[in-house]
């Protein structure tokens, strides 16, 4: 029998205990359903089949937008007290005194923290599938947006976990995580716009100016690039060889690299460094 990571097993057992988890899922889906209803009930909605595709794109954009907002505001809170909470409850020493390795503890906490957020994202799939009734969004675009969601969840979750590892108190970890999340999303977006404005595009087929390097670490860039009819669609880069990466793919890779760095740093800082003397 496969033995699940002990931390992951315990966290999943306690997080899903009680009515709270079901209430949150129900509430979130009800909210998304209300958004869908609001979009579809628009009195200015075009009745013709030809313009139904626009309805599909509009619905997809609104749902994706709210989903992205959920990820940005909720994901950091899922892992911000992962380590600092243990420290504050005085259970961290007991955990570190066991045979669990630092990677085990960090990954167990990360997966447990993000599992519920991923569950919320997956539960929203049926609502998103309404889009296919109208068209306008290809399955590729659908999948790419959800990949952006998952990569953003991983990035923000691992960043909050790192902050939790280096912060003594959960409250401070929560605040710092939210500030860093806003900085990473809104802050980097503003900085990137500031850096991009003076640069003009030389390509008449693609009026978007070159993307500054800072933008690649901003989850909002991946989101914007994955939207249907995105202005960033023409900013695909030839990375050499047979591969050409779309902008959202490059942003996802940047997310994964950053997330890996945050996880490695958390593992390194969790326990005292024993050096041979």
């Amino acid at each position, binding site marked *: *029998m496969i*033995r699940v990571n*002990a*931390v992951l*097993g*315990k966290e999943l*057992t*306690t997080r899903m*205990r009680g009515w709270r988890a079901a209430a949150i899922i129900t509430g979130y889906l009800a909210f998304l359903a209300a958004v869908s209803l609001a979009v579809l009930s628009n009195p200015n909605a075009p009745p013709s089949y030809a313009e139904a595709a626009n309805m599909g794109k509009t619905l997809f954009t609104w749902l994706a937008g709210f989903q992205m907002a959920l990820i940005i505001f909720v994901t950091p809170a899922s892992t911000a007290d992962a380590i600092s909470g243990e420290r504050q*409850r*005085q*259970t961290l*020493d*007991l*955990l*570190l*005194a*066991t*045979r*669990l*390795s630092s990677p085990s503890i960090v990954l167990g906490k990360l997966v447990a923290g993000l599992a519920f957020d991923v569950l919320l994202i997956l539960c929203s799939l049926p609502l998103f599938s309404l889009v296919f009734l109208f068209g306008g969004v290809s399955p590729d675009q659908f999948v790419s947006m959800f990949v952006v969601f998952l990569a953003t969840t991983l990035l923000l979750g691992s960043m909050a976990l790192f902050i939790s590892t280096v912060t003594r108190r959960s409250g401070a970890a929560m605040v710092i995580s939210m500030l860093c999340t806003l900085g990473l999303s809104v802050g980097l977006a503003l900085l990137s716009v500031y850096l991009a404005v003076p640069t003009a595009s030389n390509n008449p087929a693609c009026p978007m100016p070159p993307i500054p390097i800072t933008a690649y670490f901003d989850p909002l860039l991946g989101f914007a690039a994955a939207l249907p009819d995105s202005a960033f669609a023409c900013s695909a880069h030839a990375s050499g060889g047979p591969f050409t990466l779309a902008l959202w793919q490059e942003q996802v890779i940047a997310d994964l690299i950053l997330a890996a760095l945050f996880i490695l740093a958390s593992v390194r800082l969790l326990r*005292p*460094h*024993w*050096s*041979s*003397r």
Partner: protein
Amino acid sequence: MTVQHLPMGAVPATDLAATAAETPMLRAEGLVKTYGRTRALNGLSLHVPRGSIYGFVGPNGAGKTTTLRILATLLAPEGGEAWVDGRLLTTNPAAVRSKIGFMPDFFGVYDNLTVSEYLDFYAAAYGLPAAESRRTNAELLELVDLASKRNDLVENLSRGMKQRLGLARCLVHNPQVLLLDEPASGMDPRARYEMREIVKELQRMGKTVLVSSHILLELAEMCSHIGIIQDGRLLREGPVNVILGSLKGARSVRIGLMGEVVPATDVAARAVEVLGRQPGVSDIVPTEDGLEVTVAGDDAATAALLRALVEAGIPVLHFARAASSLEEIFMHLTESDDQG
């Protein structure tokens, strides 16, 4: 009433009970640890023999908790080395953790787990197979008298029960060494008694226990060895009987005197006069019901005191060795260290 207070000195005690051929289960040499400008450990060295209950005694801020946390691999010292069962901590701390069960003085619990889930989690954390851990956990709950609480949430347990659960948690992986930091802290007398009995039982099972405490009476009763720490250094360590006899071989005797036949003050004054003439008597202190006498020497010297009192016609109600000797040792050693 005149009371005699004679100066007391100290002779060095035998430092180690372990023979040269027997490796201590726990050993530390020259440990140094600093917190900011505060030096918590200042070259501490200690040796805990196998199968012993080693009482770690010291005033607040002496470095007891820091020492235990280093031995539990939770802190890295800035200098010195430490070994557990011959394994160097710095080489393989993960392997050392398998041999150690650590119970800090303050620890939290996972409130939304039941008692059995709590132990199952730590068993999994130590890599124990589920079937084996279920059996072991049932036995542990019997040992700490929490079997009836197995399905209760941990948050509903009393403080004493949480302490016992903490002890059970230390034992899930059957460690050879237990590090207990103030295990009886906040417990009522009965609970403290039960904790002592559990620790003694663990020693009978072959485990080595290092327990830090302020309650010297309990340590004297429970421990086979004592280490006295102050300002980050070990002042003295060794078997309890050797430590207790280290003040020039002095021992304290409590004598209860009857005051019904003659007025109490006359009886006490005569007793002081008689005892003061006995060889080896260094201190006589009045108590509520008689006197406490410090006398150097062996059992014969102690028996001579009783004989002298009886021959002088002094009505002795009770005559026994005082149990507070470890306290005297501790106060004397830490005071001597303060005076340099």
